[in-house]
């Protein structure tokens, strides 16, 4: 399963249709190795396929924020639909992550 793509110092994580504790834990485990590399400075979460997310997804984003923040990097969120926007707004995650596009 291809959960992330590496482009230079940026890792793009394609989130699944449903981001719950089960999926979020799998993504964290599946990306621990790539984020252990100090050269990875930025992370982009792609919500293009995502229809559901609970607070486990916020845990996932926060976790990767901590990894890249120490290295001067940034967290971006792309293809955020209306429902995800509501969840993301409520969680306060936009204080640490930037929404790309509209």
């Amino acid at each position, binding site marked *: 399963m291809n959960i992330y793509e590496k482009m230079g110092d940026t890792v793009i994580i394609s989130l699944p249709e449903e981001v719950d504790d089960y999926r979020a834990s799998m993504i964290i485990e599946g990306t621990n190795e790539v984020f252990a590399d100090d050269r990875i400075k930025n992370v982009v979460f792609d919500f293009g396929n995502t229809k559901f997310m*609970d607070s486990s997804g916020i845990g996932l984003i926060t976790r990767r924020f901590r990894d890249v923040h120490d290295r001067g990097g940034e967290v971006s969120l792309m293809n955020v639909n209306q*429902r995800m926007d509501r969840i993301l707004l409520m969680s306060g995650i936009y204080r640490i992550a930037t929404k790309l596009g509209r």
Partner: protein
Amino acid sequence: MNKNEMMIEFGSDAKNEGLARIVVASFLTRTNPTLNEVEDVKTAVSEAVTNSIIHGYENGDGKIIIKAYIEDRTIHIEIIDYGCGIPDIDKAMEPMYTSKGDENRSGMGFSFMEAFMDELVVESKVGEGTTIKMKKKIGAEQETY
């Protein structure tokens, strides 16, 4: 509308979080909810079940029961586990609080349940388990327009 009820029991396994959401969402459809209302309830159920799996049973074996009923277009949901219980409920419900000291957890589970449902009551006894009771009136959104 007459009272209509359901109950399911399933094993404490993270793979069952999706099952729990789908069952409750299907049950809810008879109230003719908006997409947002379905998503709100699914999110709250997901948070409560995750809480039982991770905290109640600490990722070990156990049974989780969901009881729900619909009365007058209000859904009442109980999520019950017989796990370790919550020693300090007020503390657990504080936003961003996580007992796990685990950096993968947001500590926002109860905040999400409170935000997406109209009412939330948590009953817990250490060593006996936790029951989360939530309710939400369907159609409240349309009425405000």
